[in-house]
Each structure stands twice: as C-alpha cells, then as structure tokens.
C-alpha cells in the first residue's frame, strides 16, 4: 500500500465523513422547532375576543415557517386555554416555562391575565411581548413590551386626541356626558377623560358608572337623554356599547355625537343607531395603514381564516392588528439578536425601533411604552373610517356630526 495514498484516502474519507456528520447534525438541529408558549381565553367570558388572537397567531407562525422559520428553525406555538381566569393563566405560564420549557413567551389576552403572565416572566427573566394590556401604569416589568401603542399616559393622551378631533369637526361640543363601565382598564381612562374635558373648558353635565356585567341600561340611557349633552363619552368594553345604544334607541334618543372606548369588534358597526359613533384604533383596513409592510397580505389571509372560523366580523382592526404587531416585535427581537436569549432580546428592543403594522415602534418610555398611536375612527355608512389625525385619513374622510 502506498502510505501517501492511504493517508490521502483516509483524510478524504475522514473529511467526507466529517462533512456528512456535520450536515447531518446541522439538519437535525435545524429541524428542532422553536417553541413559543402562551395562553388565551379560549373559553369563558373573554373568549369572544381571544379567538381573534388565536387566528392571528396561527397566521403569523405559518408565514414565518413559510419563510424558513427563525434562525433556520421552524416555529411551534404551544397554546393553552386559561379559561378567562388569571390564576389559571399564572399557573399555565409557569407550566410553559418550567415544565414545557418553551423557548420564548407570548402574552395572553387581557389585562388580568397579562399581569399574571408578567409576574411569571419576571421571575424567570423571560421577555414578554403582550398585545392587549390596558393599564400602562401597572406595567412595571422591564422586559415586558406592549404591542398596543397606548403610550404611557393614555388617560390623558387619548382623550386629548379625541377632543382635538371634535374641536376640529363641524360641531365642537360644549357639554359632555361621561358614562363608563367600572372595568379596571376602562375606568381610569374615563377618569382621565373627565380631567381633560375640564382642562379644555368643556362642561361635564353627567357622570355615571356601572358595574362590569350590567345588563340594564334603560335608566342610564334615560339619564343621558335628560342631561342633553352635546357629546357622550361611553367608557364601553365588550357589550356595553351595544346595550347602551339599544337602550337609547328604545327611548328614541340619538346622542348628537358619541364615542365608545373599547367596543366589541364587529357588533357596534352593524347597528344602524351607531351612526357616527366614534372610537379609537391603531389600525384599519384602509390606506395609509394598508401600506405598511406585510399589511395587505395579512389582511387577505385574515379574511380567509376569520370566515372559515365563522366570525361575524372578518375585518382587521385594533385587536387583530395589536396581535400581529406583538408577533412582529418578537420576530424583530429574535432576528436582530440572532438568538433566543431573553436578556439580549429585551436589551435590543429597548434600544431600537421595530417596523410593524402600526409603524415604527419604540419602547423607551415608562413601562416600555412608546408613543400613543391611537387614532380616532368613526362609523360612516356601516363601516369604520379613520377621521383623525388628518394625515391618517383617506379619501377626504372627515369627522361627521349628526
């Protein structure tokens, strides 16, 4: 045997073997999915809205996987049902982190559950991106990042935006009635609205609050009608707005101008008596929002999925947009740091801006909040139309007053 030939063959053989092993190993590692854990209120009173977040999450995961995943690995969503109970949410997040050992976390639906998740995330130093947190002052964990751009002082900034819109409308109001639910994430906003309207020199002619879950809106509607305000701020969440409008219809009262804080997506817009109702939004299916990168594609797929799931309203608006944004934020963090290291992701997010459906977001304010990006939309001809600020309107849309 020629010793050099043997050496060459050995080296070649070893090299081939090494390459084969390396690619084999690489392939094996590339196949191992990145697991993202979260809960949603798939059953219970909050399930109506949570189902939207489920659909959005599934869409995003699919889109990412079609692109080849993150860091060359596919994504897998480990989703659990917290039955609309914060104590269950907390336990499930602990399960996700300590037992299922997921790589990353995504936030659950609604303030209560998010607070529970935040506690768990804090204990294990995990990044938590969340999409539906309503009380920025309670967001005290430095690695929690909001996708819903309320800004850190929404109780002041949102009413100011609203009253700016009204002041620039055809009939600026002088008297205001504030009626609100006592739900935590709504109540403080309404309190802020009362402060703001006073500062702006408007007169509050009525203030009423009701228990969350109240079904009886007749007397409330009556008192609003009696007070005869130019403008009604309704601190509504879920069904409240609909029920109040129903009640007002029954006594043949139409407020000259009215605003609903967090109505259930869908039902409000279809009510004939909701004509000219105002609300807040961070995204609507219209330019200029649809110009954001990925927006058009997302809207298309969402329509398909939402119809398949038999949702009565298949349009993309606040909830769906906030959800998609949350995934985009996490995505950006992972891609930028090229890792799944929570600390690195958190540090990067705090120092940088992320391009999302809502525009470029930054997280360097109190509670990691950036700017208040809420805009005012209005029901016009059975559709939501953005009416303020002017630069976000389309086709000359403007605030209408009855």
């Amino acid at each position: 045997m020629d010793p050099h030939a043997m050496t060459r063959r050995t080296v070649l053989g070893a090299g081939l073997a090494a390459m084969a092993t390396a690619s084999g190993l690489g392939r094996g590692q590339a196949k191992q999915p990145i697991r993202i854990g979260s809960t949603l209120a798939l059953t219970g009173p909050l399930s109506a809205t949570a189902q939207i977040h489920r659909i959005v999450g599934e869409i995003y995961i699919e889109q990412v996987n079609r692109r080849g995943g993150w860091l060359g690995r596919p994504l897998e969503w480990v989703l659990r049902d917290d039955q609309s109970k914060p104590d269950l949410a907390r336990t499930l997040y602990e399960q996700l982190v300590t037992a299922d050992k997921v790589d990353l976390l995504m936030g659950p639906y609604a303030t209560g559950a998010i607070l529970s998740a935040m506690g768990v995330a804090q204990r294990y130093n995990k990044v938590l991106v969340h999409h539906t947190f309503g009380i920025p002052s309670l967001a005290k964990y430095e690695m929690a990042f909001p996708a819903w751009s309320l800004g850190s002082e929404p109780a002041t900034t949102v009413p100011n935006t609203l009253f700016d819109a009204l002041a620039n409308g055809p009939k600026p109001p002088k008297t205001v009635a504030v009626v609100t639910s006592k739900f935590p994430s709504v109540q403080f906003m309404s309190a802020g609205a009362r402060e703001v309207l006073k500062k702006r020199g408007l007169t509050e002619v009525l203030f009423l609050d009701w228990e969350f879950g109240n079904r009886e809106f007749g007397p409330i509607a009556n008192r609003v009608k009696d007070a005869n305000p130019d403008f009604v701020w309704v601190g509504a969440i879920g069904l409240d707005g609909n029920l109040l409008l129903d009640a007002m219809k029954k006594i043949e009262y139409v407020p000259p101008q009215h605003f609903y804080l967090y109505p259930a997506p869908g039902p409000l817009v279809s009510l004939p008596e909701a004509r000219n109702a105002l609300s807040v939004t961070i995204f609507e299916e219209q330019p200029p929002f649809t110009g954001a990168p990925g927006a058009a594609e997302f809207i298309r797929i969402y329509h398909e999925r939402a119809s398949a799931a038999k949702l009565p309203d298949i349009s993309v608006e606040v909830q769906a947009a906030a959800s998609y944004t949350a995934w985009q934020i996490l995505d950006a963090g992972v891609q930028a740091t090229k890792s799944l290291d929570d600390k690195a992701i958190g540090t990067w997010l705090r120092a940088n801006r992320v391009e999302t459906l809502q525009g470029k977001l930054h997280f360097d304010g109190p509670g990691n909040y950036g700017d208040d990006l809420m805009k005012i939309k209005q029901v016009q001809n059975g559709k939501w139309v953005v009416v303020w600020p002017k630069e976000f309107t389309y086709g000359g849309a403007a605030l209408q007053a009855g």
Partner: protein
Amino acid sequence: MSGFALPSATLLAQSILSGIFTGALYGLLGLGLSLSWGLLRQINLAHFAFAFLAAYLCYQLAVLGVDPLLSLALIVPAFFALGAALHAAMARFSITPLNSLLLTFGLTGIVEAVIQAIWTADFRKLESAYGAHRFKIAGLFLPVPELITLLVAVVLSFGTWAVLHYTDFGKTLRASAEDAPIARAFGINQGRNAWLLAGTCSALAAVAGVCLALSFTLAPSQIYAWIGVVFAAVMLGGPGRALAPLAAGVVIGVSEAVTMAVTAPSWAPLVSFTLLIAILLLRPGRVA
C-alpha cells in the same frame, strides 16, 4: 361620582317601566326553574343553558328568515320533547335536589360548549322587525320586544297558576310535591306527571330564550350572568309557586332601575340585594 340626582317624573317613570320589563324577563326565566325546583325537587341549572340554546336557535332561524314569534312553534315543542326525554333518562337514578345541581351544572357545561362550537364565542344580536318598533304613551316609551316579554311572562305565570290551582293535573303536581309517597298511594301517576312537568319547564325555558333573543345580545358566557339574579327571584318567592318568580323578579328589577335613576348605577346591586335581605329577614316565610 354624582350623588343623589332628583329625577324628573318622566325619568323615574321610564326607569320603573324599564325595571318592570327586566323583571318580567327574570320572572319568565325563573318560572320554569321555580316549578322544577318546587314540584320536581330538582335545582335545574341547565335551565339557563336551555334558554340560551333556544335563543340561539331563534337567532339562527331569524337569520334564515323565520319570524321569531313564529319560530316558537318549532322551538317550544322541540324543547318540551328534549326536557321530557332528559327527565325520562335520569328518572331511573334517584337524584336528590343537591345532586341535581351538580348534574345540571355538568349539563350546562356541555350545552355551552355546543353553543360555542356552533356559533363561536362572538356576540350575536337578533335584528327583528319587532326590535324596530315601540309604543309611546304619555311620553313614556314601551318597546315592542319588551312588551312581548312582559305579556308572555304575565300570561304564562297566570296560566301556570291557574293550572296548578284549578286543574286536576295541577293539583296532583302540588300533592306529589308536598308528600310523594302518600300521593302515590292515592293513585297519582308520578312518573308520567314528572316527565310532563319536566317537558313543560324545558318549554318555558325555550320561551324565555326566545324573549331573550328578541331583547338582548347573546354570547355563550352570558349564560352564567343571569343565574344569580334569577335564583334570587325564585328563592325570594319560594320555589314551586307560579306567580312568585314574576313578582319577585319585578321587585328586583324595579329596585335596580330606580337606583340607577337616582344615583350611581354601580350601586344598583347593593340596593336590590339589600332589599332582598331585608325582606327575607322580616318575612322569611313568604313574600309574594
């Protein structure tokens, strides 16, 4: 928070009306529950689930173009059969009232899951021709769906009362409820009475459900929102009575509405339930 606001007469009157209408629905929902509790000795939590199932069916039929009141003709017999069949299936087991609570809770979970599977968790509102109309009398508004509910509640309550007190069937029911072994010894066919009654209670739930669909927005989780106050109405008047749920329901509804008219609405439950407590302490025997 505004303190006491002296309401105008119209506001007060309209609020009282509003309370009466809500109370009528409490009473209508409570009627079937009261009968099955008092006469069948079953605390039927699933009553609410059935009401909502009927409400959703009515909604679905309306989407397909069937008038809600006409849909009663389909829904009521179907639920009568459902209730009777369920009762017949359970009759072979001896079920104490407390056990029936557990059992019907399980049933409620099943029905809720079915509703959510078919109609999703979203809010559904039945838009009917009735919803668009109302009467106006002396400056007060009487919306048609609520009037229908009130009418139905009154007619059914008094009808039930008449059946219980003036017909043989009703008397045998009351006798069996008071002392079952003796009643059986007197030849009362309790088995047949029982499933007839169970079917009737189920049918009453269905009627309540249709009225619900006419006036309220529906969601599966809303099933539980009514349990507390309707139980209160039933217990206040005493189970097994026909007129008591309606009377108690109206008392609760009106007290809540009046509170909302004069002070912060968030205090309403305090007033209505404190009133309840006071009534119970002063006259624990009977109220209505």
